[in-house]
């Protein structure tokens, strides 16, 4: 980036920067990549990761899939903030303006049919992924994004949330993931623990509760992001 600001601005016709500059940059970045590659190769060979710590505490984490245990329990605070990032991105998109008009032609019969079939299936898959995440690959994020895929398909066929849903109910759905996470964390604090310190006997249930809310929010948020703006306030078309 530094180079960019120092370089005289001359842009070739197809919107790219001139050749000598590109060459210089390529050389510099190759050197960077080589240096980073050397750094990687020089790393100590036995990876000193946290596998043993995770394994030792998996028992009390409430789930048996180590990745889910890290995401929702050991480093659950990261995930909490990350749900914040997701909601924040949506807020940002909404603050930029109303969702653009949907001016594509109505979907052909094939897509329409496909959607009718796929959407429920995807929702089922999402539910399965959410449930299975406790002990096998899967979890809230994967489930949420499959849910979002169903939403995107519906949006592509011209479906829009009803006026009754696009107000507070929609906003509650969007904020549910972060909201439930925060409420669980704080309630545990009020009960005398630390933030997000699940009692081992409830950990599994709490994680499932959080994941369920998160799945719903992630799915809705990602689909809403696809819409590219806030839902119109006025009457629907």
């Amino acid at each position, binding site marked *: *980036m*530094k180079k*960019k*600001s*120092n370089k005289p601005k001359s842009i070739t016709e197809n919107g790219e920067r001139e050749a000598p500059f590109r060459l210089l940059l390529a050389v510099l970045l190759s050197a960077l990549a080589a*240096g*980073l590659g*050397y*750094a*990687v190769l*020089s*790393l*100590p060979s036995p*990876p*000193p*990761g*946290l596998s043993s*710590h*995770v394994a030792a*505490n998996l028992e009390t984490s409430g789930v048996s899939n180590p990745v889910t245990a890290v995401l929702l*329990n*050991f*480093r*659950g*605070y*990261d995930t909490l*903030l*990350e749900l*914040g*990032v997701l*909601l*924040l*991105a949506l*807020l*940002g998109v*909404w*603050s*930029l303006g109303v969702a653009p008009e949907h001016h594509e032609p109505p979907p052909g019969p094939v897509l329409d049919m496909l959607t009718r079939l796929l959407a429920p299936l995807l929702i089922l898959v999402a539910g399965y992924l959410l449930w299975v995440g406790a002990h096998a690959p899967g979890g809230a994020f994967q489930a949420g994004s499959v849910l979002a895929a169903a939403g995107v398909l519906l949006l592509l066929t011209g479906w829009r949330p009803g006026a009754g849903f696009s107000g*507070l109910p929609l*906003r*509650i759905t*969007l*904020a549910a993931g*972060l*909201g439930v996470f*925060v409420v669980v*964390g*704080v309630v545990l*604090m*009020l009960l*005398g*623990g*630390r*933030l*997000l*310190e*699940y009692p081992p006997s409830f950990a599994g249930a709490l994680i499932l509760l959080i994941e369920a809310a998160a799945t719903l929010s992630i799915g809705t948020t990602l689909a809403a992001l696809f819409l590219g703006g806030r839902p119109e306030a006025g009457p629907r078309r």
Partner: protein
Amino acid sequence: MPWLHWGVIAIVLPLAGAMSCFLWPRRAIPLGLVTALGIVTCVAGLGWQLVEQGAQRYAVGGWGAPLGIDLYADGLSLLMLMATAAVGLGVSIYSIGYFNREKARYFWPLWMFLWAALNALFLSADIFNLYVTLELLGLAAVALVALAGGAEALTGAMRYLLVSLLGSLFYLLGVALLYHSFGSVDIAILAARVESSPAVWAAVGLISAGLLLKTALFPLHFWLPSTHASAPAPVSALLSALVVKASFYILLRLWLEIFPPTSAVLGQLLALLGATAVLWGGLQALRQTRLKMLIAYSTVAQLGYLFLAFPLASITGWTGALYMLLSHAVAKTAIFMAAGNILYFGGHDRIADLDRVVQRLPLTVTAFALAGASIMGLPPSGGFIAKWLLLEAAIRSGQWWWGGILILGGLLSAAWVFKVVGYAFTRSRAPHESRAVPVGMEWSALAMSMVAILLGLFASWPLALMEIGLPFGGKGAE
């Protein structure tokens, strides 16, 4: 109440505030204000807790590092939190009048997210968690800049977003190398295990580059002026006062704790860039024709000061840099608020046509002048104390030339402050279209500038807080 940790509430509360502002946008202003007051209370509570018990470590989820994420609060984080609370409260009050109904719906939740990100960042002891907070911070800041609308602000926001993401990726790659070198992302554990190796050096380079890009240290400052100048005034204040400081804070933390002790050359390099920033930013500020652009360039210059402490590596030097950060945060907030008032009143911020506007806003000009006095480091002001400490550290370490940079920078700031303030004393009586500035906007600007001055009279108190947990005590000791 052993379970009550004020710092945790200071993170959770703004998140809750953001959600409630999002859910009930029509009540965003009262909800936001209540949250702001709550956060200020929490930070005060945390300060009290730290004074009573010393630095605090908090294991989120009860796991503790290295498996879990730890929060850590010492004098350094406390000071950053307090600066955020002071600026945040002022900006909250200012914003009541500044934004119209439609913008307020989005300003408040975004601002609460930004506040949550800042508090989380200053309390985190985990370098991956810091990455998440950085992203939260960056996205919130970008969305806030875009709130101004218009081509200038939108391109500014877009450029800022790309820069912010790029910086985060550099940082994250550095984190990856550190994790795989030492098997932890906890700062304290890394500090204990760190030893020099090519991977560590690569990580230091990547993390520094990413954070310097976000901190806009010369010559990576190219994105800052247009972004900070085109944002809505309260957002400009937040960006200049707090957001760029957040990445500086991480850099400082890592520098003090993790980076290999042999990074003296890097320290000299940073100070050299900082010195260039001071002079370059100051000169550019003088050349600007638009007030907010001028102020934004002054931020580039003021950020340069912070890096002068790196080669001095003494407690006095670090304290001076941190005090510079604090007083610049408060003073620059006041100045951006004053500029916002001028823009609101007269509809433009062309410096050459300021005379008619400035004379009608005596409180705003006073705020500008008082905060300006702090920026140029005149006594009694926070800026003066900071300059004094940095000068003292420079002379004591025998590197007096960094002191010379401080002096020159102060003169350059004086030049632009008086260039603007001078318009208050012209005799223009020409009629001018104007819009009355809400009382809260004028008084919050004045209040912030008063805080900048008071920081010069009651410096011993924040300086004592800074010492909690001896953040500069280890490697930084003389």
